[in-house]
């Protein structure tokens, strides 16, 4: 700054005055600007307020159910009531991920690396259509079409694997007469989360650096070897977080479970029997219309448990995505 006072530089463009000009002259304050800025900031803040309200209301109305005397509660002691449902939620989601993840990754690879270029985008839309189907229609389809269709398979599974040492834990009979078991519900869930995992994985696979792929092919790799060497290692974090987001959806999905499952309040790993562990969301949908008094608070408290579980899963997914910024296309 001091150098500007010397003769050598004062002959060139005077710098201080221009700096002063930039720092002192502001644009004219306009009413429209003010209104627009405040509206925008207000909307952003409102979202934070809404979310805080969601959390506050859920916690506030859960507390009576957690602190009340178990004798007074409509559904008995809270944790004994909620635990089977929490188990059912995790178990059903786990099963659905077992079906959905390999298929979704396969579809994503098909669209990104196998399908003809012209068709690829159209095929992607077709898979996205699955995401557009309302969940209640999935429920109808699950009861009417899928359950009768898979029941012969369940009978076969129970006959052949039901008596074996380890597999018997999962495939023991008696087989449900309607086919509406947790395995069927998990299949419907899998179809519902498929488009989510596919959409993100596809984006991530498409972002594989061209040079990596071409280098691999130039060294004589077949297409599958190229995918294993270049595409999958690059895409793994993105695929993991895609699966977590799909898991978050599966945990919270209500109607497919409420309609397809013939529910019970049990903790059981058996896949084919008529008594299946219900999920938190499914139980709320079934029990809420008949709940009264503290029972409502109890159901809201189970909703809070569900909220916490999905929140943890989603935050982990976002954290994985954020720690690898190059996968931003997945957002």
């Amino acid at each position: 700054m001091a150098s500007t006072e010397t003769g050598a530089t004062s002959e060139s463009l005077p710098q201080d005055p221009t700096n002063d000009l930039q720092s002192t002259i502001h644009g004219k304050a306009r009413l429209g600007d003010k209104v627009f800025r405040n509206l925008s900031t207000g909307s952003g803040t409102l979202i934070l307020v809404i979310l805080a309200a969601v959390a506050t209301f859920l916690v506030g109305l859960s507390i009576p159910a957690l602190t009340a005397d178990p004798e007074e509660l409509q559904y008995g002691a809270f944790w004994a009531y909620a635990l089977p449902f929490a188990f059912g939620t995790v178990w059903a989601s786990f099963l659905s991920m077992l079906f959905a993840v390999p298929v979704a990754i396969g579809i994503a690879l098909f669209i990104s690396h196998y399908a003809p270029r012209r068709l690829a985008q159209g095929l992607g839309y077709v898979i996205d259509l699955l995401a557009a189907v309302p969940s209640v229609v999935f429920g109808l389809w699950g009861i009417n079409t899928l359950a009768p269709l898979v029941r012969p398979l369940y009978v076969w599974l129970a006959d052949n694997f039901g008596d074996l040492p380890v597999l018997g834990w999962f495939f023991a009979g008696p087989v449900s007469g309607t086919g509406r078991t947790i395995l069927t519900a998990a299949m419907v869930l899998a179809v519902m989360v498929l488009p989510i995992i596919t959409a993100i994985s596809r984006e991530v696979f498409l972002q594989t650096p061209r040079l990596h792929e071409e280098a691999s092919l130039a060294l004589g790799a077949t297409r599958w070897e190229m995918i294993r060497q270049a595409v999958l290692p690059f895409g793994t974090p993105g695929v993991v977080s895609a699966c977590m987001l799909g898991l978050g959806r599966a945990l919270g999905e209500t109607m497919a479970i409420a309609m397809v499952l013939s529910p019970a309040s049990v903790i059981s790993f058996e896949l084919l029997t008529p008594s299946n562990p219900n999920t938190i969301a499914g139980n709320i949908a079934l029990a809420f219309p008949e709940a009264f008094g503290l029972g409502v608070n109890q159901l809201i408290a189970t909703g809070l448990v569900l909220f916490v579980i999905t929140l943890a899963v989603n935050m982990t997914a976002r954290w994985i995505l954020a720690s690898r910024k190059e996968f931003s296309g997945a957002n």
Partner: protein
Amino acid sequence: MTATTMPTTTDNQLTAGQLPRFSAIAMLVVVVAVVAGVMALFGTPAIGAVVIVSVLVFLAAMYALSWAVEGSRRAADRTAGHVVTGFFVLALLPLVSLVFSTVAKGLERFDVQFFTYSMRNVIGEGGGAIHAIWGTIIVTGLATLISVPIGLFTAIYLVEYAGSNKLAAAIRLFVDVMTGIPSIVAGLFAYTVFSLILGPGTNSGLSGAIALTVLMIPTVVRSAEEMLRLVPNELREASYALGVPKWLTIAKVVLPTALAGLVTGVVLAIARVMGETAPLLVTAGITASMNINPFADPMATLPVFVYYQYMTPGVPQDPFYARAWAGALVLILIVMGLNAIGRFIAWKFAPKTGR
């Protein structure tokens, strides 16, 4: 010697040691025929069993053939290709089956009466879903009216005003959190808010709209933010250089440029929440009569109508099931129609990205 042997070894050096292109299709046809034939010897086979066994035999036979002719690496490559393609076909099956069964069973009651009658005083056959259709339109419309301005202005804040300050980071984080809220939890939230204000056990269309708003805002914010970011900075700078104030620049330059993308995002968000069932089950509830006042009394909506028609049928069950399927067909038509409109707008007015 060489002149006589060359033509007989192969006619094309480049394809030597490879299976012909039609080999996979030929193998598939042969395998299905053989498997169906063999299984028919042991009694009438189920179609599903034939398909499953055929697929497994096809994969094994194709691997063996390719391994013998082309070597193990190419055999693995072929198998991977078949498995990946198979997964894609596998995912199409539920979509096709679902659309087929909905159309086949829904057409039975897809008549004028379904769109002109409510369920008031209907016990067995007859009746319709006009009350549920109006309910869906009102609830979704209200949710759109609330969430689109909030979502749009939030996106404007994030893109045009905030830069990378802490509030913006917090908003982005919590919009992500909101995306993950299970729909039933959103319903519980709206229910608790209204039961605290108006007393317990209140169902109304407005509470349903609030539940849908919670689900809709994050979708709108995300798509709008992405679209506003696509607007080139040169446009904004050109506008500023002409002395246009910032808010007019946003309103007259940025928003019109991104309009197609914004509309697409909103349409897809509407399509998404229109099919939501669980939050409306606990908030808007169900009624048999027409109710177009969203501020009081339960309001039937199409997804909830379908759910109750199917899950709690009356004594002759068939009319209830038929109404449920017709409702599902209407719902699927509306949602898929909205999706098609959204995609069409996006495709028609898409900014050229150069790829």
